[in-house]
């Protein structure tokens, strides 16, 4: 089984979010980048398929040279090879088109992406990719088993979960649950040394059209101060929620 894991390079969850260039660009100053948490669950599940079922695992990112340390980290965790498509994509559609080309050319059986990235939260790359490839597709995936070409997957739905059977080729939008949190791996010294020797291929982009354009960013209005209510005076809280906030 040939697996391709899509890795988004995103600011660490504790990052302060600021913008530059007239609020048109994310300010990367002082920001630590990590593997998108949803993708990390997918990568870890892919490592299981590699170790238990002999799958090969390649990782891919659409981005500039600055994303290479994140790809190297995925190699240090255990992926076999990395691919970087050398463009700063303008939207999820463009990312999906670039990924689709590589996935098709490489005849991957299984593509694992994250259900969404924690920076743009588009939640569109896996579904677009699956549709462009005419592959089966399960998103919000919290469990994945593969036997031969048959797959069993669970997805989180509003209020519960759903289990489906399907087959390869398959695209999955992964998230927490795909593996246990305690199974996530921190690269060790040996992994980091080996990662330096693993191939990282840079491909040039093949698409340019943009279905959407980012115009600018805004930050939410600063919040007013909290109104404290005495623990012995909860009638006041009920009254505030009813009369002032009008939510009950």
């Amino acid at each position: 089984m040939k697996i391709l894991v899509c890795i988004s390079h995103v600011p660490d969850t504790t990052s302060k979010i600021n913008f530059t260039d007239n609020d048109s660009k994310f300010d990367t100053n002082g920001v630590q980048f990590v593997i998108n948490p949803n993708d990390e669950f997918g990568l870890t599940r892919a490592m299981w398929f590699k170790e238990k079922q002999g799958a090969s695992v390649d990782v891919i990112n659409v981005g500039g040279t600055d994303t290479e340390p994140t790809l190297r980290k995925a190699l240090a965790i255990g992926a076999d090879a990395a691919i970087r498509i050398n463009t700063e994509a303008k939207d999820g559609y463009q990312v999906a088109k670039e990924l689709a080309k590589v996935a098709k050319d490489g005849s991957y059986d299984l593509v694992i992406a994250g259900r969404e990235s924690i920076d743009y939260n588009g939640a569109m790359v896996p579904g677009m990719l699956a549709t462009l490839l005419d592959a089966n597709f399960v998103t919000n995936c919290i469990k994945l088993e593969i036997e031969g070409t048959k797959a069993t997957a669970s997805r989180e739905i509003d209020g519960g979960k759903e289990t489906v059977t399907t087959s390869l080729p398959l695209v999955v939008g992964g998230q927490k649950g795909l593996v246990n949190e305690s199974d996530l791996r921190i690269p060790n010294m040996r992994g980091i040394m080996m990662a330096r020797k693993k191939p990282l291929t840079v491909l040039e982009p093949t698409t340019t059209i943009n279905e959407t354009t980012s115009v600018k960013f805004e930050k939410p209005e600063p919040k007013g101060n909290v109104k404290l209510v005495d623990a012995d005076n909860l009638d006041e809280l009920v009254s505030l929620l009813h009369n002032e906030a009008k939510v009950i």
Partner: protein
Amino acid sequence: MTKQKNMSVLVYTESEKGKFKKTALEVASYAKAVANQLGTTVTAISVNANDTAELGKYGVDKILNVSDSSLEAFNAKSYAAVIVQAAKQVDAKAVIVSSSADSKYLAPILAVNLDAGYASNVVEVPSTTSPFTVKRTAFTNKAFNLTTINTPIKIVGVSNNSFGLVEANGNASTEDFSPVLPNTEVNIESIDKASDKVTIADAEIVVSAGRGMKGPENWGMIEELAEVLGAATACSKPVSDLGWRPHAEHVGQTGKPVASNLYIAIGISGAIQHLAGINASKVKVVVNTDPEAPFFKAADYGVVGDAFEVVPQLIEKLKAFKASNT
């Protein structure tokens, strides 16, 4: 803009067991606002819905209703195919969907099949329609992004609870619609879902509790508070990691997003990753013993106090309030 005969704004109105979900009425309201901007009408596409006329109250002019037992269970590819065919039939210039798990599943499929740009998590009506520019949340609610959709057909995913329900005095006509369904190779084996509970996605009020509750045996009062308020229950990440509550209740950056009208956080410290996921809620209340807990900086109302004392009292007060308000 002049009214063009065939063009319409198409809205996908989700239903469950024949009844429209609240988000369906919200996206219908949103679609009406967009149709007003474009000078056109609203067509809804619904699958196996019973009382379709209800949509008229939210500005829908026409409903294409599909009645097909093979669509009883949701299937993203089939449902997307239904919507694509409806979009073609009414020459849709904009297709509006919600942010439910199912709508987010099918929207990217729609985008590719309609060759359309898609903006998800949109929180306002377009600021301009030419270019078609919408405001969406980004960086898990830590920022907004203004995005222009450049394609002839635009797909907008409306963030739950961002627009609300807007009633209109309309009448909607219903037509049967029989699309061609594709073959799908994703087959449902089982669905595991508490049918008697409000889901986090649909709830107007969410009662959420954290590690401050000490253990799963103490959740009785959280459930009771939720019941009094007609709220959904949620929890912080460690609570689901510890197995005190099901994973489906985990909210935050790596869990489910929450955009309720009221979010009540009990014994939750307010870590940045938790707040990121729930910040879109309109009014936030925190109950915490520690006045220095970061949640107080993000909340609108706060009670410094012990949950084990505050929650039972609050339940009594709310019951009294409900009794005197009905």
